[in-house]
Protein backbone atom coordinates (compact mmCIF):
# COMPACT_ATOMS: atom_id res chain seq x y z
CA UNK A 1 0.00 0.00 0.00
CA UNK A 2 1.20 3.50 -0.86
CA UNK A 3 1.56 6.19 1.79
CA UNK A 4 -1.08 8.36 0.06
CA UNK A 5 -3.56 5.45 0.00
CA UNK A 6 -3.04 5.16 3.75
CA UNK A 7 -3.77 8.89 4.23
CA UNK A 8 -6.93 8.48 2.13
CA UNK A 9 -8.01 5.52 4.24
CA UNK A 10 -7.29 7.48 7.42
CA UNK A 11 -9.49 10.32 6.14
CA UNK A 12 -12.33 7.92 5.33
CA UNK A 13 -12.06 6.25 8.74
CA UNK A 14 -12.04 9.68 10.41
CA UNK A 15 -15.21 10.75 8.59
CA UNK A 16 -16.88 7.42 9.37
CA UNK A 17 -16.03 7.86 13.06
CA UNK A 18 -17.65 11.32 13.06
CA UNK A 19 -20.78 9.80 11.54
CA UNK A 20 -20.79 6.93 14.04
CA UNK A 21 -20.32 9.41 16.89
CA UNK A 22 -23.42 11.26 15.73
CA UNK A 23 -25.33 7.97 15.41
CA UNK A 24 -24.15 6.96 18.85
CA UNK A 25 -25.44 10.22 20.36
CA UNK A 26 -28.75 9.88 18.50
CA UNK A 27 -29.32 6.33 19.76
CA UNK A 28 -27.86 6.97 23.23
CA UNK A 29 -25.47 4.10 22.65
CA UNK A 30 -21.95 4.81 23.96
CA UNK A 31 -20.90 1.23 23.17
CA UNK A 32 -21.27 1.92 19.44
CA UNK A 33 -18.67 4.71 19.40
CA UNK A 34 -16.35 2.86 21.81
CA UNK A 35 -16.30 -0.27 19.63
CA UNK A 36 -16.01 1.67 16.36
CA UNK A 37 -13.13 3.82 17.63
CA UNK A 38 -11.18 0.75 18.75
CA UNK A 39 -11.95 -1.04 15.45
CA UNK A 40 -11.03 2.06 13.42
CA UNK A 41 -7.69 2.51 15.17
CA UNK A 42 -6.92 -1.21 14.85
CA UNK A 43 -7.67 -0.94 11.11
CA UNK A 44 -5.36 2.07 10.77
CA UNK A 45 -2.54 0.31 12.65
CA UNK A 46 -2.93 -2.70 10.38
CA UNK A 47 -3.00 -0.47 7.26
CA UNK A 48 0.09 1.41 8.44
CA UNK A 49 2.02 -1.84 8.72
CA UNK A 50 1.16 -2.53 5.06
CA UNK A 51 2.56 0.77 3.76
CA UNK A 52 5.56 -0.02 1.60
CA UNK A 53 6.96 3.39 0.68
CA UNK A 54 7.13 4.76 4.24
CA UNK A 55 10.68 5.40 5.36
CA UNK A 56 11.51 5.28 9.03
CA UNK A 57 14.94 5.15 10.54
CA UNK A 58 16.67 5.66 13.87
CA UNK A 59 16.42 9.46 13.70
CA UNK A 60 12.66 9.51 13.05
CA UNK A 61 12.22 6.86 15.77
CA UNK A 62 14.21 9.06 18.16
CA UNK A 63 11.97 12.05 17.35
CA UNK A 64 8.88 9.98 18.14
CA UNK A 65 10.42 8.55 21.33
CA UNK A 66 11.52 11.91 22.68
CA UNK A 67 8.21 13.62 21.95
CA UNK A 68 6.21 10.74 23.46
CA UNK A 69 8.32 10.79 26.61
CA UNK A 70 8.05 14.56 27.05
CA UNK A 71 4.28 14.41 26.45
CA UNK A 72 3.96 11.72 29.11
CA UNK A 73 6.09 13.74 31.54
CA UNK A 74 3.96 16.87 31.15
CA UNK A 75 0.71 14.95 31.00
CA UNK A 76 1.15 13.03 34.22
CA UNK A 77 1.95 16.23 36.12
CA UNK A 78 -1.18 17.94 34.74
CA UNK A 79 -3.31 14.84 35.32
CA UNK A 80 -1.96 14.36 38.84
CA UNK A 81 -2.57 18.01 39.74
CA UNK A 82 -6.13 17.94 38.39
CA UNK A 83 -6.84 14.60 40.10
CA UNK A 84 -5.61 16.03 43.39
CA UNK A 85 -7.98 18.95 42.89
CA UNK A 86 -10.77 16.43 42.36
CA UNK A 87 -9.73 14.56 45.49
CA UNK A 88 -9.84 17.78 47.51
CA UNK A 89 -13.41 18.42 46.32
CA UNK A 90 -14.30 14.80 47.20
CA UNK A 91 -12.74 15.02 50.65
CA UNK A 92 -14.49 18.30 51.38
CA UNK A 93 -17.90 16.95 50.44
CA UNK A 94 -20.46 16.91 53.27
CA UNK A 95 -20.89 13.52 54.83
CA UNK A 96 -17.46 12.19 53.69
CA UNK A 97 -16.55 9.32 53.13
CA UNK A 98 -20.00 8.45 51.77
CA UNK A 99 -22.07 11.54 50.97
CA UNK A 100 -25.81 10.97 51.19
CA UNK A 101 -27.26 10.40 47.73
CA UNK A 102 -29.80 13.06 46.75
CA UNK A 103 -33.17 11.45 46.29
CA UNK A 104 -33.75 12.43 42.67
CA UNK A 105 -30.20 12.27 41.36
CA UNK A 106 -29.25 8.67 41.15
CA UNK A 107 -26.29 9.01 38.76
CA UNK A 108 -23.06 10.96 38.61
CA UNK A 109 -23.19 13.35 35.61
CA UNK A 110 -20.88 11.24 33.44
CA UNK A 111 -21.33 13.55 30.44
CA UNK A 112 -19.24 16.22 32.19
CA UNK A 113 -16.55 13.66 32.93
CA UNK A 114 -16.53 12.69 29.25
CA UNK A 115 -16.02 16.31 28.15
CA UNK A 116 -13.26 16.71 30.71
CA UNK A 117 -11.52 13.56 29.46
CA UNK A 118 -11.83 14.81 25.88
CA UNK A 119 -10.21 18.07 26.95
CA UNK A 120 -7.30 16.18 28.52
CA UNK A 121 -6.97 14.01 25.41
CA UNK A 122 -6.86 17.12 23.20
CA UNK A 123 -4.17 18.55 25.48
CA UNK A 124 -2.16 15.36 25.08
CA UNK A 125 -2.50 15.42 21.29
CA UNK A 126 -1.51 19.10 21.07
CA UNK A 127 1.45 18.47 23.37
CA UNK A 128 2.61 15.49 21.32
CA UNK A 129 2.36 17.36 18.02
CA UNK A 130 4.14 20.37 19.52
CA UNK A 131 6.97 18.28 20.93
CA UNK A 132 7.23 16.35 17.68
CA UNK A 133 7.68 19.59 15.72
CA UNK A 134 10.22 20.82 18.29
CA UNK A 135 12.35 17.66 18.21
CA UNK A 136 12.01 17.24 14.44
CA UNK A 137 13.40 20.73 14.05
CA UNK A 138 16.16 20.07 16.58
CA UNK A 139 17.19 16.86 14.80
CA UNK A 140 17.35 18.43 11.35
CA UNK A 141 14.04 17.38 9.81
CA UNK A 142 13.68 20.58 7.78
CA UNK A 143 17.34 21.22 7.04
CA UNK A 144 18.17 21.85 3.41
CA UNK A 145 21.28 22.14 1.30
CA UNK A 146 22.38 22.42 -2.31
CA UNK A 147 21.29 18.83 -3.02
CA UNK A 148 17.69 19.64 -2.11
CA UNK A 149 15.22 18.70 -4.87
Amino acid at each position, binding site marked *: MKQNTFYLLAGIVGLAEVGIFWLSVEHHSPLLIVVSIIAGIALLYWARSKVTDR*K*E*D*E*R*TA*LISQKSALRTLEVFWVVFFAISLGGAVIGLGAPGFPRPPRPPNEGLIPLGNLGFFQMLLLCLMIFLYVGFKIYYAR*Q*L*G*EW*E*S*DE*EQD
Partner: protein
Amino acid sequence: MHDLTQEKLADELGVTRQTILAIEKGKYYPSLDLAFKIARFFGVTIEDVFIDEDAESRKKL
Protein backbone atom coordinates in the same frame (compact mmCIF):
# COMPACT_ATOMS: atom_id res chain seq x y z
CA MET B 1 33.73 11.54 -3.43
CA HIS B 2 32.42 8.26 -4.91
CA ASP B 3 30.15 10.40 -7.18
CA LEU B 4 27.45 9.79 -4.61
CA THR B 5 24.27 11.66 -3.79
CA GLN B 6 22.74 11.81 -0.33
CA GLU B 7 19.73 9.94 -1.69
CA LYS B 8 21.87 7.03 -2.93
CA LEU B 9 23.87 6.88 0.28
CA ALA B 10 20.67 6.93 2.31
CA ASP B 11 19.22 4.08 0.25
CA GLU B 12 22.42 2.06 0.69
CA LEU B 13 22.38 2.57 4.46
CA GLY B 14 18.62 2.09 4.86
CA VAL B 15 17.93 5.54 6.28
CA THR B 16 16.22 8.68 4.99
CA ARG B 17 18.07 11.34 3.02
CA GLN B 18 17.14 13.81 5.75
CA THR B 19 19.11 11.71 8.24
CA ILE B 20 22.23 11.88 6.07
CA LEU B 21 21.76 15.64 5.78
CA ALA B 22 21.23 15.99 9.56
CA ILE B 23 24.46 14.03 10.22
CA GLU B 24 26.38 16.20 7.76
CA LYS B 25 25.08 19.37 9.39
CA GLY B 26 25.88 18.09 12.89
CA LYS B 27 22.23 18.16 13.92
CA TYR B 28 22.09 14.44 14.62
CA TYR B 29 24.68 12.04 16.01
CA PRO B 30 24.17 8.59 14.49
CA SER B 31 24.05 5.40 16.52
CA LEU B 32 27.20 3.31 16.71
CA ASP B 33 25.58 0.83 14.36
CA LEU B 34 24.90 3.47 11.69
CA ALA B 35 28.34 5.01 12.19
CA PHE B 36 29.93 1.61 11.51
CA LYS B 37 27.75 1.17 8.42
CA ILE B 38 28.86 4.54 7.07
CA ALA B 39 32.52 3.79 7.72
CA ARG B 40 32.20 0.33 6.17
CA PHE B 41 30.45 1.79 3.13
CA PHE B 42 33.35 4.16 2.44
CA GLY B 43 35.97 1.53 3.38
CA VAL B 44 37.48 3.63 6.15
CA THR B 45 37.52 3.59 9.94
CA ILE B 46 34.99 5.42 12.12
CA GLU B 47 37.70 7.89 13.21
CA ASP B 48 38.15 8.88 9.56
CA VAL B 49 34.48 9.79 9.26
CA PHE B 50 33.61 11.16 12.70
CA ILE B 51 35.64 13.39 14.97
CA ASP B 52 35.67 12.98 18.74
CA GLU B 53 35.42 16.67 19.65
CA ASP B 54 36.33 16.06 23.30
CA ALA B 55 39.52 14.23 22.34
CA GLU B 56 40.41 16.96 19.85
CA SER B 57 39.99 19.71 22.43
CA ARG B 58 42.02 17.74 24.99
CA LYS B 59 44.84 17.42 22.46
CA LYS B 60 44.92 21.17 21.99
CA LEU B 61 45.34 21.80 25.75
